[in-house]
């Protein structure tokens, strides 16, 4: 495995108590594979990625537990200097808002060159030439002119291409993209996602893509991890998670997106209520209060991850993990009528 995350937890210490933003999540990413992490705002998907990148290092009010291994080497215990060598070189990250992720006072070319000068000891001239090549790779128009421009002169889609050029400058093993297209138009979104896919294939790079949009997940994912209230509640190959959905939350998330044949003017299915307070996460399953299938046990105890005996998918050559879901509905003791009712809904 390229990246192995085990029992990762992140807590923020606040004056009112601690926010349990990420609660004991485990997942792994293989070479060349795409993992999509799916969830609503506040579910901990960005925080977990920032923890993996080491962006919280040495902040006194943040507690990180668990293990993150890249090529078998532990990342969480590294000192800042070592971390700096890995960040941008072996793992890099792009963010939702490209405008505020770039330095407004530096030329585009200098910002890309900086990565190469820092990690690969390029001379300035060399790095500048390479920056143009990288920009061309992202299929930006007139790359040789763009290097001399400042971020404010470019559109959102172009800036995201610049971010991508920077992040792939050192041919990282793994790229983390945190909602890279949420701020963009549908047509630009398609171009950026296509670009990520092409680059990924060319460089045999792994990709972790964070999104709240099931459509984007269907376009990009090999594996999907669905997060809710700081936990991964369902995890498996895309087809299996979509067609053999194992968690009521995932089903609801699917249903809240209008299908092409959804009648006009008819209300959409919504997930009533709101996610729980992470200062004081519930003892049992965090989705219980909003779940149509809640049983008494759900409030008392968090379910284990049940492995679902779904059919083998074509991706099984990847050695992909089996499909599992944290829900009591898969327990042998769960009443039959509830199981049947669950299976009936789409």
């Amino acid at each position, binding site marked *: 495995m390229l990246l192995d995350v085990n029992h990762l937890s992140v807590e923020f210490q606040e004056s009112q108590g601690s926010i349990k933003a990420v609660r004991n999540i485990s997942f792994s990413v293989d070479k060349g594979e795409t993992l999509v992490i799916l969830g609503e*705002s506040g579910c901990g998907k960005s925080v977990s990625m920032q923890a993996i990148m080491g962006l919280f290092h040495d902040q006194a009010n943040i507690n990180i537990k668990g293990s993150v291994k890249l090529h078998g080497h532990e990342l969480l215990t590294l000192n800042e200097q070592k971390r700096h060598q890995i960040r941008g070189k072996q793992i890099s990250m792009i963010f939702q808002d490209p405008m505020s992720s770039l330095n407004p006072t530096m030329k585009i070319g200098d910002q890309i060159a900086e990565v190469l000068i820092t990690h690969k000891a390029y001379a300035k001239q060399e790095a500048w030439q390479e920056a143009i090549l990288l920009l061309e790779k992202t299929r930006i128009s007139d790359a040789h002119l763009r290097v001399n421009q400042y971020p404010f002169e470019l559109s959102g889609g172009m800036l995201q291409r610049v971010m991508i050029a920077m992040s792939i400058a050192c041919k990282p093993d793994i790229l983390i993209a945190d909602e890279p297209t949420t701020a963009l138009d549908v047509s630009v979104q398609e171009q950026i996602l296509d670009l990520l896919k092409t680059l990924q294939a060319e460089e045999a790079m792994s990709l972790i893509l964070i999104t709240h949009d099931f459509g984007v997940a*269907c376009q990009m994912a090999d594996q999907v991890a669905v997060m809710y209230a700081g936990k991964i509640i369902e995890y498996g190959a895309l087809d299996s998670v979509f067609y053999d959905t194992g968690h009521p939350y995932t089903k*609801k998330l699917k249903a809240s997106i209008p299908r092409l044949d959804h009648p006009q003017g008819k209300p959409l299915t919504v997930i009533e209520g709101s996610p729980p307070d992470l200062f004081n996460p519930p003892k049992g399953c965090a989705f219980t209060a909003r779940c149509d299938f809640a049983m008494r046990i759900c409030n008392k105890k968090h379910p284990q991850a049940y492995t679902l005996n779904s059919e083998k998918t074509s991706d099984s050559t990847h050695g992909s993990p089996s499909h599992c879901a944290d829900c009591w509905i898969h327990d042998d003791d769960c009443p039959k009528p509830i199981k049947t009712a669950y299976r009936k809904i789409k």
Partner: protein
Amino acid sequence: MKPPVIEVNNLSVHYPIKQGENLRAVQNVTLSIQEGEVLGLVGESGSGKSTLGKAMIGLTHKTQGWIKYRGRFLPKSYTLSDFRSHAKHMQMIFQDPYGSLNPSMTIKEILREPMQLTDNRSRTKQQEAIHYWIEKVGLSINHLNRYPHEFSGGQRQRIGIARALILSPKFIICDEPISALDVSVQAQIINLLLELKSELSLTLLFIAHDLSMVRLISDTIAVMKKGIIVETGPSDTVFKKPSHDYTKMLIEANPIADPKDEKKRQKARIKSNKSL
């Protein structure tokens, strides 16, 4: 027959950019919206759809053409008293739920302000209206003394909706009200708007870049590209049988939330890109 609620005729909005050069944000747009109708206005960013919405409510000038509201001409440029008298008839819901609420005002103050500026109803009447609308949009009276930063994006958008509706206007411009929200929250806001629309027989201009959500709420869809309306028609027709290539592109660019259908879409896209 009743005149349309809003009628736009040959409207152009130009902004000067350099000496002698103009950015033609809106070019010769003609459209009308009937009472109780929802017009979905779709296009990429920079296509001029927000400028058109702003021109309707007087937030930007009109270079050429005119706009009528219920048969009466709207002024070419607005004075403060124009804004105040029109506020009771038309209102706007903004895209950014973070930037469009004053961070130093409580929710109660935010909701009271439109009433203070436009009519002289008593304090008790104001209070009644505030209580009525905060619950109408799915929040509670307990929320009234809080500040905007204490709310999530979806909740803030609900506050924006309450603020827009508190003067009981009949025409609402929704400028990308769901673009900044999570998919699941988008569904909640769309449902709320659908419900309010039929209960209050509102007329809406719904601006967005994502056709799949717009289709659900709109009776008619107008597609805008580079300041020009390239296609108009009943929502289902535009969506199922788009006649303009640009509309097709907008529809097909959307990923489908179903792995098998999505694979088919991608294959079709590769084909159509090659043929271009």
